[in-house]
């Protein structure tokens, strides 16, 4: 009997611990299970907000997984619309899904995107012995025969990883993007494995996913989809300098409920800017393969609106949405 009680108590204690209980502190919702990118954003930003004395109490992280962030999004819009002490982790995946109506009718204008404070640059990768030496080679091969190249990526069809090569091809003047072949596998590392194995000809993903394989010499990065070359990887050319004007980065940031006042919104923006400027955050970015990418407040909201509009156009062309 004692053992039973002990077991049950232990379990419930551990569970309570895991789930977290609401307190009167700032809450950061990570719309995924512990350990993922959104969880990382909440925990790191939450920690720095408190360490830098931008909030009075430690930030409470709540994990609310489901539907690729849709469950948390619905929760915020319908139940927490005026919560001024709530921030929610977001990334490119959030806006891509919103643009594609993957959150059951929810739209991007039902919350306010308050800021991005780092980004994982998009990359196009081939195996080390691939015939393609430059992004141009790859694009020409697809133009000549779209069936000859298959991309592997970690997101579902129509997801952010799928969009990257399509944007490059659009920029190259290739309009038949529905003929571009893409397979969705379980994560970036799996996509690289399939590419090294020769089952797919190229991989599309985030830079952080590729670093181990890059250092081991198993792959070559044909292009990084940023405005400038990434510090520390100065020998990898951008798509832009190869003549394809595409910038696609997986930003890490936050949104807040729609119903808060402009003053509260600007307050959050200022706090995020302070986190982004701190030496601690710069260290965190370096440790985790993130490139600098800071946009806050109205500036960020405007950029998000533009990205969403572009994604809608592209998604319609490939038939993910009508």
């Amino acid at each position, binding site marked *: 009997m004692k053992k039973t009680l002990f077991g049950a108590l232990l379990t419930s204690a551990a569970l309570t611990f895991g789930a977290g209980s609401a307190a009167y502190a700032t809450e950061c919702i990570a719309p995924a299970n512990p350990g993922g990118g959104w969880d990382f954003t909440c925990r790191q930003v939450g920690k720095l907000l408190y360490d830098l004395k931008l909030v009075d109490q430690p930030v409470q992280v709540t994990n609310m997984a489901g539907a690729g962030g849709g469950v948390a999004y619905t929760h915020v819009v319908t139940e927490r619309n005026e919560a001024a002490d709530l921030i929610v982790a977001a990334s490119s995946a959030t806006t891509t899904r919103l643009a594609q109506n993957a959150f059951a009718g929810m739209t991007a204008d039902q919350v306010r995107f308050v800021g991005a404070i780092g980004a994982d640059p998009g990359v196009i990768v081939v195996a080390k012995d691939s015939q393609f030496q430059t992004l141009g080679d790859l694009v020409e091969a697809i133009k000549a025969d779209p069936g000859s190249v298959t991309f592997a990526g970690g997101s579902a069809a129509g997801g952010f990883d799928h969009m990257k090569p399509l944007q490059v091809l659009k920029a190259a003047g290739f309009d038949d993007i529905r003929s571009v072949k893409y*397979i969705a596998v379980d994560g970036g590392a799996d996509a690289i494995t399939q590419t090294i194995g020769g089952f797919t000809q190229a991989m599309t993903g985030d830079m952080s996913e590729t670093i181990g394989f890059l250092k081991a010499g198993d792959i070559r990065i044909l292009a990084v989809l940023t405005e400038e070359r990434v510090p520390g990887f100065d020998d990898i050319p951008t798509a832009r300098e190869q003549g394809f004007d595409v910038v696609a980065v997986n930003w890490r940031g936050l949104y807040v409920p729609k119903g808060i006042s402009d003053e509260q919104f600007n307050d959050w923006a200022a706090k995020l800017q302070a986190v982004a400027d701190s030496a601690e955050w710069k260290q965190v970015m370096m440790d985790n393969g993130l490139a600098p990418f800071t946009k806050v407040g109205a500036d960020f909201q405007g950029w998000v609106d533009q990205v969403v509009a572009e994604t809608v156009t592209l998604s319609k062309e490939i038939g993910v949405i009508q």
Partner: protein
Amino acid sequence: MEILANLAHGFTVAATPFTLFLAVVGCFLGTIFGALPGLGPSNGVAILIPLAFTLGLDATQALVLLTSVYYGTMYGGRISSILLNIPGDEPAMMTTLDGFPMAKQGRAGDALVISGVASFMGAFLSTVGLVIMAPLLAAIAYLFGPAEYFALYLLAFLTLGGVASKNQAKAALAAALGLGIAMIGVDNATGMPRFTGGNLHLNDGVDFLVAIVGLFAIAEVFIFIESHGKNSAIGVALDKVSIPWRDLRSTFGTMLRGSGIGFVAGVLPGAGASLGSFLAYMAEKSWLGSRGRFGTGDPRGVAAPEAGNNAAAGGAMVPMLTLGVPGSGTTAVMLAVLMTLNITPGPLLFSERPEVVWGLIASLFIANIVLLIMNVPMVKLFVKVLMVPAWVLMPMVTMVSFVGIYSLTGSYFDLVLMVGFGILGYILRKLDVPAVPVILGILLGNEMENALRRAMTISNGDWTYLFSSPIAIGLWIFAIAGFVAPFFLRGKLKKPPVPATDDLNED
């Protein structure tokens, strides 16, 4: 020699009093998480992540804690499979098939000891495999493309009908039901939601854990209520635990084979421990043919899946560490932890962070020995958790099921879904349809479909691509043989089974 030096280095990292303490705590918690239906390896590990961060553990310590929990759940899952006929977690599902019949025959203690030793063998051998072959094995992942994976899952699927010993048609029906449930959720190949009824909660599909807890634990509660405890599995007695040396000797070969199969299944990214235990069980069943009494309490039917799932747990570490590709759901969670600890798994991890890798491997050996002690001589301690009067146990099982599932997603929806599965499980029980193939259908169906869709995309719709490599062709031959063979063997099977003791020397 270099391996031994590295390993010695690993032990110096792992064998500090504090890390040993963490290993013991992790093993204990893991066994309990595993034994309680509703809490499996992935949420067991996920629950402890915040704890690891709060305690400020360094990379090696955090890994020791989490891998001990992982291995512990693999051991613990069998306890409720055997005693309650409710798998403690999904890889322990196959253990119910022979473990529970053994318990009903009054051999619960034997089943626990055999499965405990099998778990140890599986985990130990796969850890040795990890040490010797990790860098070589990483290359296997490069040989498996969509066509090969499709053939592998097909092999599993075509042998599914044989899971039930009595009525194969019912097993096939159950598998088809699982396959249907697997179709729910966003289709990876098009990004379109299917059969979700517009409900966001179904976009990610049905979680196996929700299905398994519903079909087994909640259904058991319904049966219990209906029959006032008479037809329920609850209440199997366990008198004394002694070591059945004879059975251990006779299942030794089974454990070795199960470990080998499980390890390979674990190494392949995506296949995981459930496939490992399933293939180990089915392979043993067909290997023994009419000489086995599978499904009716054959000790080998307990040894094979337990060796298989524990070996797969070790095997799954290979792609996780060497490629950064998780080999199972739990390693996916652990991979995320590694990233957060600023360790990037991948081809360079062994050379760049040897202290982490070898510390981890050393701690796996330590955890294994701790677990063997906890799960064989001290197994009664855990059994006591499940051996309480039914009026205490049933509410507890129900509560832990609900809390466990809620901790997965924090959504009420999964609780409703779980009760739905409970009702389905009750109906299936009444119709005498086995529930195990439903789960396997969900689990394998998803992966099999994804593999087929990827293959078709790559080949521009050319079906011959599925037979385009020697590995794929080999798997197809096995798959077809596995499906067709029972028809030819049927005549043979009708002969009276040879007494189990006669085949000892043939193993």
